[in-house]
Protein backbone atom coordinates (compact mmCIF):
# COMPACT_ATOMS: atom_id res chain seq x y z
CA UNK A 1 0.00 0.00 0.00
CA UNK A 2 1.27 3.40 -0.93
CA UNK A 3 2.08 5.52 2.07
CA UNK A 4 2.19 9.32 2.07
CA UNK A 5 3.44 11.56 4.83
CA UNK A 6 0.26 13.54 4.34
CA UNK A 7 -3.02 12.63 2.71
CA UNK A 8 -5.27 15.59 1.94
CA UNK A 9 -8.92 14.95 1.14
CA UNK A 10 -10.43 17.70 -0.97
CA UNK A 11 -8.55 19.89 -3.47
CA UNK A 12 -10.36 23.16 -2.76
CA UNK A 13 -8.74 26.24 -1.22
CA UNK A 14 -8.10 24.56 2.16
CA UNK A 15 -6.87 21.26 0.70
CA UNK A 16 -4.61 22.81 -1.93
CA UNK A 17 -3.09 25.13 0.67
CA UNK A 18 -2.55 22.24 3.08
CA UNK A 19 -0.90 20.19 0.33
CA UNK A 20 1.40 23.07 -0.63
CA UNK A 21 2.41 23.75 2.96
CA UNK A 22 3.15 20.09 3.68
CA UNK A 23 5.08 19.57 0.45
CA UNK A 24 7.10 22.74 1.03
CA UNK A 25 8.50 21.12 4.20
CA UNK A 26 9.60 18.05 2.27
CA UNK A 27 6.68 15.80 3.08
CA UNK A 28 5.20 13.52 0.44
CA UNK A 29 1.61 14.51 -0.25
CA UNK A 30 -1.32 12.74 -1.87
CA UNK A 31 -4.22 15.04 -2.65
CA UNK A 32 -7.56 13.37 -3.40
CA UNK A 33 -10.67 14.93 -4.90
CA UNK A 34 -13.85 13.34 -6.18
CA UNK A 35 -14.27 15.93 -8.92
CA UNK A 36 -12.78 15.88 -12.41
CA UNK A 37 -11.12 19.25 -11.81
CA UNK A 38 -9.21 20.47 -8.80
CA UNK A 39 -9.86 23.78 -7.06
CA UNK A 40 -13.13 23.08 -5.30
CA UNK A 41 -15.26 26.19 -5.70
CA UNK A 42 -12.31 28.46 -6.52
CA UNK A 43 -12.44 28.12 -10.30
CA UNK A 44 -15.94 29.49 -10.52
CA UNK A 45 -15.20 32.50 -8.33
CA UNK A 46 -14.81 35.16 -10.99
CA UNK A 47 -15.07 38.04 -8.54
CA UNK A 48 -12.21 39.81 -6.81
CA UNK A 49 -11.54 38.57 -3.29
CA UNK A 50 -11.71 40.64 -0.13
CA UNK A 51 -9.02 40.88 2.54
CA UNK A 52 -5.59 42.45 2.29
CA UNK A 53 -2.56 41.75 0.13
CA UNK A 54 -1.45 38.80 2.30
CA UNK A 55 -4.88 37.22 1.70
CA UNK A 56 -4.58 37.72 -2.07
CA UNK A 57 -7.21 40.45 -1.99
CA UNK A 58 -8.43 42.00 -5.25
CA UNK A 59 -7.30 38.89 -7.13
CA UNK A 60 -10.13 36.98 -8.76
CA UNK A 61 -10.82 33.62 -7.13
CA UNK A 62 -10.09 31.46 -10.18
CA UNK A 63 -6.65 33.05 -10.54
CA UNK A 64 -5.91 32.17 -6.92
CA UNK A 65 -6.92 28.61 -7.82
CA UNK A 66 -4.55 28.59 -10.80
CA UNK A 67 -1.70 29.89 -8.64
CA UNK A 68 -2.29 27.27 -5.95
CA UNK A 69 -2.52 24.45 -8.45
CA UNK A 70 0.70 25.46 -10.19
CA UNK A 71 2.46 25.68 -6.85
CA UNK A 72 1.19 22.27 -5.73
CA UNK A 73 2.36 20.68 -8.96
CA UNK A 74 5.74 22.35 -8.73
CA UNK A 75 6.21 20.98 -5.23
CA UNK A 76 5.44 17.45 -6.38
CA UNK A 77 2.04 17.02 -4.77
CA UNK A 78 0.40 13.92 -6.26
CA UNK A 79 -3.08 15.01 -7.27
CA UNK A 80 -5.66 12.21 -7.63
CA UNK A 81 -8.79 13.43 -9.43
CA UNK A 82 -12.08 11.56 -9.97
CA UNK A 83 -11.05 9.88 -6.74
CA UNK A 84 -13.81 9.56 -4.17
CA UNK A 85 -12.65 8.70 -0.70
CA UNK A 86 -15.12 5.98 0.26
CA UNK A 87 -13.88 5.27 3.74
CA UNK A 88 -11.35 6.40 6.29
CA UNK A 89 -9.91 4.14 8.93
CA UNK A 90 -8.06 4.88 12.16
CA UNK A 91 -5.81 3.84 13.84
CA UNK A 92 -4.61 2.30 10.55
CA UNK A 93 -4.44 5.80 9.04
CA UNK A 94 -5.90 4.40 5.87
CA UNK A 95 -8.27 5.66 3.20
CA UNK A 96 -10.09 3.71 0.50
CA UNK A 97 -10.54 5.49 -2.78
CA UNK A 98 -12.80 4.72 -5.70
CA UNK A 99 -12.12 6.03 -9.18
CA UNK A 100 -15.33 4.60 -10.64
CA UNK A 101 -13.64 1.46 -11.91
CA UNK A 102 -11.70 0.14 -8.97
CA UNK A 103 -10.92 0.82 -5.36
CA UNK A 104 -7.47 1.44 -3.97
CA UNK A 105 -6.22 2.02 -0.47
CA UNK A 106 -3.57 4.47 0.67
CA UNK A 107 -2.17 5.22 4.05
CA UNK A 108 -0.95 8.50 5.46
CA UNK A 109 0.95 9.42 8.60
CA UNK A 110 -1.37 12.39 8.66
CA UNK A 111 -4.76 12.84 7.08
CA UNK A 112 -6.11 16.32 6.53
CA UNK A 113 -9.83 16.52 5.84
CA UNK A 114 -10.73 19.44 3.63
CA UNK A 115 -13.90 18.11 2.06
CA UNK A 116 -15.72 21.43 2.12
CA UNK A 117 -19.47 21.82 2.33
CA UNK A 118 -22.62 21.23 0.37
CA UNK A 119 -25.43 23.64 -0.34
CA UNK A 120 -28.48 23.58 1.88
CA UNK A 121 -31.74 22.87 0.16
CA UNK A 122 -35.09 23.98 1.49
CA UNK A 123 -38.07 21.74 0.92
CA UNK A 124 -41.11 23.60 -0.43
CA UNK A 125 -43.91 22.74 -2.77
CA UNK A 126 -42.33 22.05 -6.15
CA UNK A 127 -38.70 22.17 -5.00
CA UNK A 128 -37.88 19.00 -6.94
CA UNK A 129 -38.93 20.55 -10.27
CA UNK A 130 -36.22 21.16 -12.87
CA UNK A 131 -35.40 24.84 -12.56
CA UNK A 132 -34.92 24.80 -8.80
CA UNK A 133 -31.25 24.50 -7.97
CA UNK A 134 -28.56 25.63 -5.60
CA UNK A 135 -27.03 29.04 -6.26
CA UNK A 136 -23.64 27.34 -6.33
CA UNK A 137 -24.87 24.94 -8.99
CA UNK A 138 -26.02 27.87 -11.09
CA UNK A 139 -22.62 29.46 -10.62
CA UNK A 140 -20.96 26.27 -11.85
CA UNK A 141 -23.19 26.25 -14.92
CA UNK A 142 -22.39 29.87 -15.75
CA UNK A 143 -18.76 30.20 -14.88
CA UNK A 144 -17.36 26.76 -15.63
CA UNK A 145 -19.62 25.61 -18.45
CA UNK A 146 -20.77 28.88 -20.00
CA UNK A 147 -24.44 27.97 -19.65
CA UNK A 148 -27.09 30.33 -18.31
CA UNK A 149 -29.15 28.54 -15.64
CA UNK A 150 -32.32 30.24 -16.89
CA UNK A 151 -33.70 33.49 -18.24
CA UNK A 152 -35.67 34.96 -15.36
CA UNK A 153 -34.37 34.14 -11.93
CA UNK A 154 -35.50 34.33 -8.33
CA UNK A 155 -32.72 34.17 -5.75
CA UNK A 156 -33.67 32.83 -2.33
CA UNK A 157 -31.13 33.98 0.27
CA UNK A 158 -29.26 37.26 0.63
CA UNK A 159 -26.02 36.03 2.15
CA UNK A 160 -22.80 36.57 0.25
CA UNK A 161 -23.42 33.52 -1.94
CA UNK A 162 -26.83 34.84 -3.00
CA UNK A 163 -25.44 38.33 -3.60
CA UNK A 164 -22.28 37.30 -5.46
CA UNK A 165 -24.04 34.73 -7.63
CA UNK A 166 -26.91 37.19 -8.12
CA UNK A 167 -24.51 39.74 -9.56
CA UNK A 168 -22.87 37.14 -11.77
CA UNK A 169 -26.29 36.14 -13.12
CA UNK A 170 -26.84 39.74 -14.19
CA UNK A 171 -23.35 39.76 -15.73
CA UNK A 172 -24.22 36.64 -17.70
CA UNK A 173 -27.30 38.35 -19.11
CA UNK A 174 -30.00 36.73 -16.97
CA UNK A 175 -32.87 38.77 -15.62
CA UNK A 176 -32.65 38.65 -11.82
CA UNK A 177 -36.23 39.35 -10.72
CA UNK A 178 -35.60 39.64 -7.00
CA UNK A 179 -33.49 38.49 -4.08
CA UNK A 180 -35.63 37.35 -1.17
CA UNK A 181 -34.68 36.40 2.38
CA UNK A 182 -36.75 35.23 5.33
CA UNK A 183 -34.57 37.33 7.65
CA UNK A 184 -35.51 41.00 8.11
CA UNK A 185 -32.09 42.18 6.87
CA UNK A 186 -29.64 41.41 4.10
CA UNK A 187 -27.22 38.74 5.26
CA UNK A 188 -24.17 39.44 3.11
CA UNK A 189 -21.85 42.40 2.65
CA UNK A 190 -23.57 45.71 1.97
CA UNK A 191 -21.22 46.42 -0.94
CA UNK A 192 -22.24 43.17 -2.65
CA UNK A 193 -25.91 44.09 -2.16
CA UNK A 194 -25.31 47.62 -3.44
CA UNK A 195 -23.82 46.53 -6.75
CA UNK A 196 -26.86 44.31 -7.36
CA UNK A 197 -29.33 47.00 -6.23
CA UNK A 198 -27.89 49.63 -8.55
CA UNK A 199 -28.77 47.49 -11.54
CA UNK A 200 -32.40 47.67 -10.40
CA UNK A 201 -32.89 44.33 -8.63
CA UNK A 202 -35.29 44.58 -5.65
CA UNK A 203 -34.56 43.01 -2.27
CA UNK A 204 -37.59 41.51 -0.55
CA UNK A 205 -36.74 40.87 3.09
CA UNK A 206 -38.95 38.90 5.50
CA UNK A 207 -40.09 36.93 2.46
CA UNK A 208 -40.00 33.23 1.78
CA UNK A 209 -40.63 30.94 -1.14
CA UNK A 210 -43.98 29.19 -0.84
CA UNK A 211 -44.20 27.25 -4.05
CA UNK A 212 -42.55 26.60 -7.36
CA UNK A 213 -45.15 26.53 -10.09
CA UNK A 214 -45.08 24.27 -13.09
CA UNK A 215 -45.54 20.62 -13.97
CA UNK A 216 -42.55 19.76 -16.17
CA UNK A 217 -40.28 22.56 -15.01
CA UNK A 218 -40.49 25.85 -13.14
CA UNK A 219 -42.87 28.33 -14.78
CA UNK A 220 -43.24 30.66 -11.84
CA UNK A 221 -42.74 31.17 -8.13
CA UNK A 222 -45.06 32.15 -5.32
CA UNK A 223 -43.47 34.09 -2.50
CA UNK A 224 -45.01 35.43 0.69
CA UNK A 225 -44.11 37.69 3.56
CA UNK A 226 -43.22 35.93 6.82
CA UNK A 227 -43.99 36.76 10.43
CA UNK A 228 -41.43 36.91 13.23
CA UNK A 229 -41.48 33.09 13.44
CA UNK A 230 -40.64 32.89 9.73
CA UNK A 231 -44.11 31.55 8.90
CA UNK A 232 -45.83 32.80 5.72
CA UNK A 233 -48.52 35.39 6.42
CA UNK A 234 -51.76 34.36 4.66
CA UNK A 235 -52.88 36.84 2.06
CA UNK A 236 -49.38 38.13 1.28
CA UNK A 237 -48.65 35.56 -1.43
CA UNK A 238 -47.62 36.84 -4.78
CA UNK A 239 -46.59 35.34 -8.05
CA UNK A 240 -43.26 36.03 -9.74
CA UNK A 241 -42.79 35.28 -13.39
CA UNK A 242 -39.58 33.24 -13.26
CA UNK A 243 -38.25 30.06 -14.83
CA UNK A 244 -35.49 29.43 -12.33
CA UNK A 245 -35.38 29.48 -8.53
CA UNK A 246 -31.96 29.49 -6.93
CA UNK A 247 -31.43 28.53 -3.32
CA UNK A 248 -28.68 30.26 -1.36
CA UNK A 249 -29.64 29.45 2.20
CA UNK A 250 -26.33 28.38 3.61
CA UNK A 251 -23.99 25.44 3.54
CA UNK A 252 -23.62 22.22 5.49
CA UNK A 253 -20.13 20.85 6.24
CA UNK A 254 -19.40 17.55 4.46
CA UNK A 255 -18.17 15.99 7.65
CA UNK A 256 -19.25 12.37 7.18
CA UNK A 257 -15.66 11.20 6.72
CA UNK A 258 -14.67 12.81 10.00
CA UNK A 259 -17.59 11.17 11.75
CA UNK A 260 -16.59 7.78 10.35
CA UNK A 261 -13.29 7.94 12.20
CA UNK A 262 -15.08 8.28 15.52
CA UNK A 263 -13.44 11.59 16.36
CA UNK A 264 -15.32 14.01 18.61
CA UNK A 265 -17.98 15.97 16.77
CA UNK A 266 -20.12 18.99 17.67
CA UNK A 267 -23.07 20.87 16.21
CA UNK A 268 -22.19 24.01 14.29
CA UNK A 269 -24.63 24.46 11.43
CA UNK A 270 -24.38 20.73 10.90
CA UNK A 271 -21.93 18.36 12.52
CA UNK A 272 -18.28 19.35 12.52
CA UNK A 273 -15.24 17.69 14.04
CA UNK A 274 -13.99 19.28 17.25
CA UNK A 275 -10.54 20.69 16.45
CA UNK A 276 -7.81 22.44 18.41
CA UNK A 277 -6.12 25.69 17.33
CA UNK A 278 -4.06 23.76 14.76
CA UNK A 279 -7.04 22.00 13.22
CA UNK A 280 -6.24 18.67 14.87
CA UNK A 281 -9.22 16.51 15.79
CA UNK A 282 -9.48 14.31 18.87
CA UNK A 283 -7.62 11.64 16.86
CA UNK A 284 -3.89 12.16 16.57
CA UNK A 285 -2.83 12.63 12.97
CA UNK A 286 -6.33 13.56 11.77
CA UNK A 287 -6.86 17.22 10.94
CA UNK A 288 -9.73 19.23 9.51
CA UNK A 289 -9.49 22.52 7.64
CA UNK A 290 -11.84 24.80 5.72
CA UNK A 291 -15.62 24.54 5.61
CA UNK A 292 -15.64 20.93 6.82
CA UNK A 293 -14.67 22.23 10.27
CA UNK A 294 -17.13 25.14 10.23
CA UNK A 295 -18.44 27.31 7.41
CA UNK A 296 -16.30 30.36 6.63
CA UNK A 297 -14.98 31.57 3.30
CA UNK A 298 -12.14 30.71 0.94
CA UNK A 299 -9.53 33.10 2.32
CA UNK A 300 -9.69 31.74 5.86
CA UNK A 301 -9.94 28.19 4.50
CA UNK A 302 -6.59 28.69 2.75
CA UNK A 303 -4.94 29.75 5.99
CA UNK A 304 -6.65 26.97 7.95
CA UNK A 305 -5.24 24.43 5.51
CA UNK A 306 -1.75 25.85 5.91
CA UNK A 307 -1.95 25.72 9.70
CA UNK A 308 -3.08 22.07 9.75
CA UNK A 309 -0.26 21.01 7.43
CA UNK A 310 2.24 23.07 9.41
CA UNK A 311 1.16 21.31 12.61
CA UNK A 312 1.55 17.93 10.91
CA UNK A 313 5.02 18.89 9.70
CA UNK A 314 6.04 19.94 13.22
CA UNK A 315 4.59 16.80 14.81
CA UNK A 316 6.59 14.56 12.48
CA UNK A 317 9.78 16.56 12.78
CA UNK A 318 9.87 18.15 9.32
CA UNK A 319 10.29 21.58 10.83
CA UNK A 320 11.93 22.84 13.98
CA UNK A 321 9.74 23.96 16.85
CA UNK A 322 10.82 27.60 16.57
CA UNK A 323 10.12 27.68 12.85
CA UNK A 324 6.73 26.17 13.53
CA UNK A 325 5.91 28.75 16.18
CA UNK A 326 6.96 31.64 13.97
CA UNK A 327 4.94 30.45 10.94
CA UNK A 328 1.98 29.53 13.08
CA UNK A 329 1.82 32.95 14.70
CA UNK A 330 2.04 34.60 11.25
CA UNK A 331 -0.81 32.48 9.89
CA UNK A 332 -2.83 32.98 13.03
CA UNK A 333 -2.57 36.76 12.92
CA UNK A 334 -3.47 36.72 9.25
CA UNK A 335 -6.51 34.61 10.07
CA UNK A 336 -7.55 36.86 12.93
CA UNK A 337 -7.60 39.85 10.59
CA UNK A 338 -10.16 38.06 8.41
CA UNK A 339 -12.27 37.09 11.38
CA UNK A 340 -12.86 40.65 12.54
CA UNK A 341 -15.54 43.17 11.72
CA UNK A 342 -19.28 43.28 11.79
CA UNK A 343 -19.64 39.93 10.01
CA UNK A 344 -17.34 38.15 12.48
CA UNK A 345 -18.52 35.04 14.26
CA UNK A 346 -19.20 36.84 17.55
CA UNK A 347 -21.49 39.29 15.77
CA UNK A 348 -23.60 36.67 13.99
CA UNK A 349 -27.28 37.09 14.63
CA UNK A 350 -26.75 40.51 16.17
CA UNK A 351 -28.03 43.76 14.76
CA UNK A 352 -25.28 46.29 15.24
CA UNK A 353 -26.35 49.91 15.46
CA UNK A 354 -23.01 51.60 14.91
CA UNK A 355 -19.72 50.92 13.12
CA UNK A 356 -16.41 50.57 14.97
CA UNK A 357 -16.02 54.29 14.32
CA UNK A 358 -19.29 54.99 16.15
CA UNK A 359 -21.16 55.93 12.96
CA UNK A 360 -24.73 54.74 12.52
CA UNK A 361 -24.97 51.66 10.32
CA UNK A 362 -27.12 52.27 7.27
CA UNK A 363 -30.46 50.60 7.86
CA UNK A 364 -31.48 51.29 4.30
CA UNK A 365 -28.50 49.26 3.12
CA UNK A 366 -29.57 46.34 5.32
CA UNK A 367 -33.21 46.53 4.25
CA UNK A 368 -33.02 47.55 0.61
CA UNK A 369 -29.45 46.97 -0.46
CA UNK A 370 -28.47 50.56 -1.11
CA UNK A 371 -27.44 53.62 0.85
CA UNK A 372 -30.00 56.30 1.38
CA UNK A 373 -29.02 59.66 -0.03
CA UNK A 374 -29.51 61.23 3.40
CA UNK A 375 -27.03 58.80 4.91
CA UNK A 376 -24.14 59.06 2.52
CA UNK A 377 -22.47 62.13 3.93
CA UNK A 378 -21.95 60.60 7.36
CA UNK A 379 -19.21 58.17 6.27
CA UNK A 380 -15.49 59.04 6.13
CA UNK A 381 -15.10 57.83 2.55
CA UNK A 382 -17.82 60.05 1.19
CA UNK A 383 -16.68 63.59 1.13
CA UNK A 384 -17.73 66.40 -1.12
CA UNK A 385 -15.22 68.83 -2.59
CA UNK A 386 -13.97 70.61 -5.67
CA UNK A 387 -12.09 68.79 -8.38
CA UNK A 388 -12.06 65.09 -9.02
CA UNK A 389 -12.03 62.97 -5.86
CA UNK A 390 -12.80 59.43 -4.71
CA UNK A 391 -16.18 58.71 -3.15
CA UNK A 392 -15.93 55.47 -1.19
CA UNK A 393 -19.34 53.98 -0.47
CA UNK A 394 -17.97 51.46 2.01
CA UNK A 395 -19.97 51.71 5.22
CA UNK A 396 -19.57 48.39 7.02
CA UNK A 397 -16.57 47.09 8.96
CA UNK A 398 -15.44 44.24 6.74
CA UNK A 399 -11.87 42.89 6.51
CA UNK A 400 -10.69 44.53 3.32
CA UNK A 401 -8.12 47.13 2.32
CA UNK A 402 -6.98 46.95 -1.34
CA UNK A 403 -8.18 50.54 -1.86
CA UNK A 404 -5.47 51.78 0.46
CA UNK A 405 -2.73 49.99 -1.51
CA UNK A 406 -4.28 50.93 -4.84
CA UNK A 407 -3.95 54.67 -4.33
CA UNK A 408 -0.32 55.73 -4.72
CA UNK A 409 -1.21 59.31 -3.88
CA UNK A 410 -2.42 58.85 -0.33
CA UNK A 411 -6.05 59.73 -1.02
CA UNK A 412 -7.39 56.62 0.75
CA UNK A 413 -6.55 55.45 4.24
CA UNK A 414 -7.72 52.35 6.04
CA UNK A 415 -4.87 51.91 8.53
CA UNK A 416 -3.45 48.78 10.13
CA UNK A 417 -6.82 47.46 11.23
CA UNK A 418 -8.22 46.34 7.89
CA UNK A 419 -11.83 46.34 9.06
CA UNK A 420 -11.84 50.11 9.56
CA UNK A 421 -13.83 52.16 7.09
CA UNK A 422 -11.69 53.76 4.40
CA UNK A 423 -11.14 57.46 4.80
CA UNK A 424 -10.97 59.76 1.79
CA UNK A 425 -8.14 62.17 2.59
CA UNK A 426 -9.27 65.59 1.44
CA UNK A 427 -5.74 66.98 1.45
CA UNK A 428 -4.28 64.52 -1.06
CA UNK A 429 -4.79 65.22 -4.72
CA UNK A 430 -6.67 62.62 -6.78
CA UNK A 431 -4.93 61.96 -10.12
CA UNK A 432 -7.92 60.22 -11.70
CA UNK A 433 -5.90 57.05 -12.25
CA UNK A 434 -8.86 54.77 -11.55
CA UNK A 435 -6.76 52.26 -9.63
CA UNK A 436 -8.96 52.39 -6.54
CA UNK A 437 -12.13 52.01 -8.60
CA UNK A 438 -10.81 48.82 -10.19
CA UNK A 439 -9.20 47.45 -7.02
CA UNK A 440 -12.25 47.61 -4.75
CA UNK A 441 -13.66 44.04 -4.57
CA UNK A 442 -16.98 45.54 -3.51
CA UNK A 443 -17.11 47.90 -6.51
CA UNK A 444 -17.89 50.64 -4.04
CA UNK A 445 -15.45 53.36 -5.14
CA UNK A 446 -16.38 56.12 -7.55
CA UNK A 447 -14.42 59.11 -8.79
CA UNK A 448 -16.59 62.16 -8.87
CA UNK A 449 -16.04 65.60 -10.29
CA UNK A 450 -19.01 67.43 -8.94
CA UNK A 451 -18.71 70.44 -11.22
CA UNK A 452 -17.12 70.23 -14.67
CA UNK A 453 -18.81 73.41 -15.87
CA UNK A 454 -22.00 73.79 -17.90
CA UNK A 455 -23.93 72.46 -14.93
CA UNK A 456 -22.49 69.03 -15.58
CA UNK A 457 -20.67 66.52 -13.39
CA UNK A 458 -18.53 63.47 -14.21
CA UNK A 459 -18.91 60.15 -12.41
CA UNK A 460 -16.36 57.38 -12.88
CA UNK A 461 -17.60 53.93 -11.96
CA UNK A 462 -16.53 50.27 -12.09
CA UNK A 463 -18.26 48.39 -14.90
CA UNK A 464 -18.06 44.62 -15.29
CA UNK A 465 -20.59 44.08 -18.04
CA UNK A 466 -20.10 43.34 -21.70
CA UNK A 467 -20.42 44.67 -24.31
CA UNK A 468 -18.78 47.86 -23.14
CA UNK A 469 -20.48 51.11 -24.11
CA UNK A 470 -18.68 53.32 -26.60
CA UNK A 471 -17.35 56.78 -25.88
CA UNK A 472 -19.99 59.31 -26.82
CA UNK A 473 -22.84 56.86 -26.34
CA UNK A 474 -25.91 58.28 -24.67
CA UNK A 475 -27.89 56.42 -22.04
CA UNK A 476 -29.10 56.83 -18.51
CA UNK A 477 -27.54 57.46 -15.15
CA UNK A 478 -28.97 55.04 -12.60
CA UNK A 479 -29.46 55.76 -8.92
CA UNK A 480 -28.24 53.47 -6.13
CA UNK A 481 -31.56 51.65 -6.35
CA UNK A 482 -31.27 51.25 -10.11
CA UNK A 483 -33.75 53.88 -11.28
CA UNK A 484 -33.03 55.84 -14.42
CA UNK A 485 -32.68 59.29 -12.92
CA UNK A 486 -30.97 61.32 -15.63
CA UNK A 487 -29.53 61.25 -19.13
CA UNK A 488 -25.86 60.29 -19.21
CA UNK A 489 -23.15 60.46 -21.86
CA UNK A 490 -20.18 58.12 -21.83
CA UNK A 491 -17.06 60.29 -21.65
CA UNK A 492 -14.42 57.63 -21.28
CA UNK A 493 -14.00 53.86 -21.12
CA UNK A 494 -10.72 52.59 -19.71
CA UNK A 495 -9.68 48.96 -19.82
CA UNK A 496 -6.11 48.82 -18.60
CA UNK A 497 -4.72 45.29 -18.03
CA UNK A 498 -3.92 46.30 -14.46
CA UNK A 499 -7.65 46.80 -13.85
CA UNK A 500 -8.10 43.05 -14.48
CA UNK A 501 -11.24 43.24 -16.63
CA UNK A 502 -13.01 45.82 -14.51
CA UNK A 503 -13.72 48.58 -16.99
CA UNK A 504 -13.55 52.12 -15.67
CA UNK A 505 -16.43 54.05 -17.13
CA UNK A 506 -16.76 57.82 -16.90
CA UNK A 507 -20.20 59.26 -17.51
CA UNK A 508 -21.34 62.84 -17.72
CA UNK A 509 -24.48 63.63 -15.78
CA UNK A 510 -26.28 66.81 -14.69
CA UNK A 511 -24.50 68.49 -11.79
CA UNK A 512 -27.20 67.73 -9.23
CA UNK A 513 -26.81 64.03 -10.03
CA UNK A 514 -23.10 63.87 -9.09
CA UNK A 515 -23.82 62.23 -5.76
CA UNK A 516 -26.81 60.23 -6.99
CA UNK A 517 -25.89 58.56 -10.29
CA UNK A 518 -23.96 55.37 -9.58
CA UNK A 519 -24.53 53.15 -12.60
CA UNK A 520 -24.92 53.44 -16.34
CA UNK A 521 -27.37 51.83 -18.70
CA UNK A 522 -27.28 52.26 -22.45
CA UNK A 523 -30.46 53.45 -24.11
CA UNK A 524 -30.69 50.25 -26.12
CA UNK A 525 -32.57 48.07 -23.70
CA UNK A 526 -32.80 44.38 -24.21
Amino acid at each position, binding site marked *: *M*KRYHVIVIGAGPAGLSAAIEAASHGMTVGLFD*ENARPGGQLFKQIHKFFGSKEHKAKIRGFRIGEELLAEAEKLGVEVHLNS*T*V*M*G*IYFPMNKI*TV*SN*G*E*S*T*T*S*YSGNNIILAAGA*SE*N*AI*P*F*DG*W*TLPGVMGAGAAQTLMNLHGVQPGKRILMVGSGNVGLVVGFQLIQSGCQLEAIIDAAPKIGGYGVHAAKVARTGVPFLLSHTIVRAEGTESVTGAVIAQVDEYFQPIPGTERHLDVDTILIATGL*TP*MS*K*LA*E*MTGCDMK*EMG*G*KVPVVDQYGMTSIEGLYAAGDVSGIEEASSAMIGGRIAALAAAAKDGYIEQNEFEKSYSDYQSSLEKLRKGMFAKENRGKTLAVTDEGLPISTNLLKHGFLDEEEITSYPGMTSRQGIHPVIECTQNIPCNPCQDACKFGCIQVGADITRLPIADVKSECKNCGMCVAACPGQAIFLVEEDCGDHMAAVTLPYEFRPLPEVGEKGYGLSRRGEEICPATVLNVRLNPVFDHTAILTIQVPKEMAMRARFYRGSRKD
Partner: protein
Amino acid sequence: MRKLDDRNIDLGEIIPELDDHIIICRCEEITKGEIREAVHMGMFTMTEVKRLLRPGMGLCQGQTCSRYVRNIIAKELGVSPLEIEDNVARPPMRPIELQVFGNEVESE
Protein backbone atom coordinates in the same frame (compact mmCIF):
# COMPACT_ATOMS: atom_id res chain seq x y z
CA MET B 1 -37.04 9.89 31.72
CA ARG B 2 -36.55 11.84 28.57
CA LYS B 3 -39.54 11.73 26.34
CA LEU B 4 -37.40 10.19 23.63
CA ASP B 5 -36.56 7.10 25.65
CA ASP B 6 -40.15 6.26 26.40
CA ARG B 7 -41.41 4.02 23.65
CA ASN B 8 -44.86 3.85 25.12
CA ILE B 9 -45.72 7.50 24.79
CA ASP B 10 -48.91 8.25 22.98
CA LEU B 11 -48.34 10.72 20.17
CA GLY B 12 -52.06 10.89 19.52
CA GLU B 13 -53.82 10.78 16.21
CA ILE B 14 -51.76 11.95 13.25
CA ILE B 15 -53.25 15.22 12.09
CA PRO B 16 -52.76 15.81 8.37
CA GLU B 17 -50.75 18.92 7.51
CA LEU B 18 -50.99 20.98 4.36
CA ASP B 19 -47.45 20.21 3.29
CA ASP B 20 -47.47 16.47 4.01
CA HIS B 21 -47.11 15.80 0.29
CA ILE B 22 -43.81 17.67 -0.02
CA ILE B 23 -40.86 15.46 -0.87
CA ILE B 24 -38.17 15.65 1.81
CA CYS B 25 -35.70 13.05 0.53
CA ARG B 26 -35.23 13.77 -3.16
CA CYS B 27 -33.11 10.76 -3.93
CA GLU B 28 -35.62 8.24 -2.61
CA GLU B 29 -38.73 10.41 -3.04
CA ILE B 30 -40.01 10.25 0.51
CA THR B 31 -42.59 12.76 1.66
CA LYS B 32 -42.98 14.64 4.89
CA GLY B 33 -46.24 12.77 5.54
CA GLU B 34 -44.54 9.39 5.23
CA ILE B 35 -41.89 10.38 7.74
CA ARG B 36 -44.53 11.69 10.17
CA GLU B 37 -46.43 8.44 9.84
CA ALA B 38 -43.29 6.44 10.56
CA VAL B 39 -42.81 8.38 13.80
CA HIS B 40 -46.38 7.66 14.79
CA MET B 41 -45.72 4.00 14.05
CA GLY B 42 -42.96 4.12 16.66
CA MET B 43 -39.82 4.97 14.69
CA PHE B 44 -38.21 7.52 17.02
CA THR B 45 -34.68 7.61 15.61
CA MET B 46 -33.10 8.54 12.29
CA THR B 47 -31.82 4.99 11.93
CA GLU B 48 -35.27 3.48 12.37
CA VAL B 49 -36.90 5.87 9.94
CA LYS B 50 -34.07 5.22 7.49
CA ARG B 51 -34.51 1.46 7.71
CA LEU B 52 -38.23 1.73 7.16
CA LEU B 53 -38.38 4.39 4.44
CA ARG B 54 -34.81 4.79 3.08
CA PRO B 55 -34.39 8.60 3.41
CA GLY B 56 -30.67 9.26 3.22
CA MET B 57 -29.91 6.03 1.41
CA GLY B 58 -29.84 7.45 -2.10
CA LEU B 59 -27.28 9.24 -4.18
CA CYS B 60 -26.48 12.04 -1.73
CA GLN B 61 -26.48 9.73 1.30
CA GLY B 62 -28.51 12.16 3.35
CA GLN B 63 -26.26 15.19 2.86
CA THR B 64 -29.32 17.18 1.73
CA CYS B 65 -32.28 15.79 3.65
CA SER B 66 -30.85 14.62 6.98
CA ARG B 67 -31.48 17.87 8.76
CA TYR B 68 -35.09 17.96 7.57
CA VAL B 69 -35.80 14.34 8.44
CA ARG B 70 -34.36 15.05 11.85
CA ASN B 71 -36.46 18.20 12.29
CA ILE B 72 -39.65 16.36 11.33
CA ILE B 73 -39.00 13.51 13.77
CA ALA B 74 -38.19 16.02 16.52
CA LYS B 75 -41.31 18.05 15.88
CA GLU B 76 -43.55 14.99 15.99
CA LEU B 77 -41.96 13.94 19.27
CA GLY B 78 -41.96 17.45 20.68
CA VAL B 79 -38.22 17.50 21.38
CA SER B 80 -35.28 19.56 20.12
CA PRO B 81 -33.69 18.22 16.90
CA LEU B 82 -30.42 18.05 18.81
CA GLU B 83 -31.91 15.23 20.89
CA ILE B 84 -32.40 13.13 17.80
CA GLU B 85 -29.22 11.27 17.05
CA ASP B 86 -28.07 11.60 13.47
CA ASN B 87 -27.54 8.69 11.11
CA VAL B 88 -24.35 6.77 11.70
CA ALA B 89 -21.66 7.66 9.17
CA ARG B 90 -20.08 4.59 7.71
CA PRO B 91 -18.32 3.62 4.53
CA PRO B 92 -18.90 3.70 1.65
CA MET B 93 -19.30 7.49 1.64
CA ARG B 94 -20.99 7.46 -1.75
CA PRO B 95 -23.11 4.82 -3.47
CA ILE B 96 -20.79 2.47 -5.29
CA GLU B 97 -21.31 -0.39 -7.73
CA LEU B 98 -20.37 -3.76 -6.30
CA GLN B 99 -18.14 -4.54 -9.25
CA VAL B 100 -16.16 -1.37 -8.47
CA PHE B 101 -16.17 -2.11 -4.77
CA GLY B 102 -14.90 -5.63 -5.41
CA ASN B 103 -12.26 -4.61 -7.92
CA GLU B 104 -9.49 -3.73 -5.52
CA VAL B 105 -6.23 -2.57 -7.01
CA GLU B 106 -3.07 -2.32 -4.93
CA SER B 107 -1.54 1.16 -4.79
CA GLU B 108 2.12 1.34 -5.67
